[in-house]
């Protein structure tokens, strides 16, 4: 699933750069109420107000999206017998706490959460730093074979992670990293998508005049990168960071090969919980819920930014 999770974010190829700034909330937020904006919108006639049918349909979609998550809470607090009853329960209850306690005995969920946090943070830091640096070089520095190298990067976005796992596994074993978190961190420390995404953003967001001014003032390329480019592309770095963190947090295929159930990421812990010998389904559900809630909370808090980031990625990429 790695491509879903990595290139997936790159999404697509719209008219590059043109509309990135008009996506999502930005424009209506700033312009709401000004006469010109209202005029423009009504003239276009496209942003029509939703009728009750629109809200009904959207409501159904929202319900379908959120209901399985809510129902996990219900499933986590009822025994198999209760779930199999003629009228299944619709509300959770306090037995969820006991079930969670049982889940802790079956899989190292807290260790999984800590490990996932370490892995996702390291991968995010590495990806954002290295991809921004490489993206800057590809966008603004002239060196031989730059075009060829960039083509290689873009071309490999299509190659699935599964292609290389056997040699990768042996490589990690030889490096003595089998079952170490480093085995999960290293291979995803850079992504082709990240380089391409940052290159696109640096190209459009950092005017050459600004960089030339930096050189004029006697700054070297590194100084220019740190003091001029990084501040200018910080929004894109944030977007890349959020998407990378989420992808890394949810990564499944490589971690279950590289890590054991004693030193798992949270996804590996889910797998051992789900495939272990839980006497009741509710225990599995409670553990799954426990491991999922942190990322959902973060997601709810940063939701607007993440939505904006994905939509921006869609147009930029």
């Amino acid at each position: 699933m790695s491509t879903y999770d990595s290139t997936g974010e790159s999404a697509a190829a719209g008219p590059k750069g043109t509309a990135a700034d008009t996506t999502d909330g930005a424009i209506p937020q700033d312009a709401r109420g000004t006469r010109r904006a209202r005029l423009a919108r009504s003239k276009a006639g496209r942003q029509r107000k939703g009728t009750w049918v629109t809200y009904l349909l959207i409501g159904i979609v929202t319900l379908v999206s959120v209901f399985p998550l809510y129902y996990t809470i219900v499933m986590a607090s009822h025994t198999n017998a209760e779930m199999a009853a003629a009228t299944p329960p619709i509300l959770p209850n306090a037995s969820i706490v006991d079930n969670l306690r049982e889940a802790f005995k079956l899989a190292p969920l807290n260790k999984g959460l800590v490990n996932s946090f370490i892995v996702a943070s390291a991968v995010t830091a590495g990806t954002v730093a290295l991809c921004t640096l490489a993206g800057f070089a590809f966008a603004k520095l002239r060196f031989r074979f730059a075009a060829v190298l960039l083509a290689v990067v873009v071309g490999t976005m299509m190659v699935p992670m599964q292609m290389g796992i056997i040699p990768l596994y042996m490589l990690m074993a030889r490096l003595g990293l089998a079952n170490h978190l480093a085995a999960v961190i290293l291979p995803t420390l850079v992504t082709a998508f990240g380089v391409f995404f940052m290159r696109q953003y640096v190209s459009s967001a950092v005017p050459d005049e600004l960089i030339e001014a930096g050189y004029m003032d006697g700054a070297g390329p590194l100084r220019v990168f740190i003091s001029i480019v990084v501040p200018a592309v910080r929004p894109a770095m944030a977007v890349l960071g959020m998407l990378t963190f989420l992808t890394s947090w949810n990564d499944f295929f490589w971690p279950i090969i590289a890590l054991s159930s004693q030193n798992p990421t949270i996804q590996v812990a889910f797998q051992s919980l789900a495939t272990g010998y839980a006497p009741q389904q509710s225990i599995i559900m409670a553990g799954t819920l426990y491991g999922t809630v942190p990322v959902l909370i973060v997601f709810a808090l940063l939701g607007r930014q993440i939505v904006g980031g994905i939509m921006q990625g869609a147009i930029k990429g």
Partner: protein
Amino acid sequence: MSATDAAVPTTSVTRARKRRRRLPGSRIGYVYVLPFFVVFIAFSLYPWLDTAWVSLHSVRLTTYDESVWVGLDNYRNLFTNPYFWNAFRNTVTIGIISTVPQLLTALGIAHLLNYQLRGRTFFRVSMLMPYATSLAAATVIFLELFDPGLGLVNWFLETVHLPAVDWQNSKWPAQVAVSTIVIWRWTGYNALIYLAGMQAIDEDLYEAAAIDGANRWKQFIHVTLPGLRPVIIFTIVVSTIGASQLFGEPLLYHNGTPDGGTENQYQTLGLLMYQQGWAYDRLGLASATAWTMFVIIVLAVVVNLAIARWTGRPSQTARAEGETR
């Protein structure tokens, strides 16, 4: 990736090239891309290529260094193996069942989200919740929802007087259930991608279409869809790649065993490869499967792009333009 190539307007590329020529800092560029390429070559490029080499050998995990050259035997084994063809068929059918409804629904949702709505951030974030849920968690959750005895899905079917379905052991229902997990996780995400694409379409086109008397539906067909073409093609390509590698959902759907159900009724190529490598300890065969999968992915993407080009170009786009002018 020609989807991406096609999308980058040539003007901006040439402009960037012209600009870049003026900037100093030539050789330092290598230094800046070096960290990326070191990691990339060590942990991506080298393993990919080595997989090809391993696929020509008989290799076991425990005796990895004592591999025996077998030429194309692994590929011969694979192509005469009924399990391979079963997995291939399953990958294709699950791919279709999971991708086609997903993208069509996403398009419809994007259209709805493009209306002026109160609480739109709430709707958008809610629709992305499944994307934030990991595939492991989602599969575990849906496994119970589809459980023949405990699950809400069968309860619902019985409530509306439909027969209960064995979502685990019968072939098509199991494939539908696995596909449902994929659809649930990715529809909202794709809807946002489409929404971004819709908002990038020039408003004047709609205005012109409206003046020409095109109703909302006609505007959707003749302005929105042509405008979204690059985005749609890209989502199809990404979904195809993802579907070709489907692994985690069918693995966890059968309790973490890579057989894809008791009769391999939802074993995908990704699962087969994992089974060959880690359950049967036949790394050479697994590597041959990996390369075969890669070739299949490339072919699938090429076919998709060819179809997209063939359907999109001549009549429809021209008509849309004719009508909006």
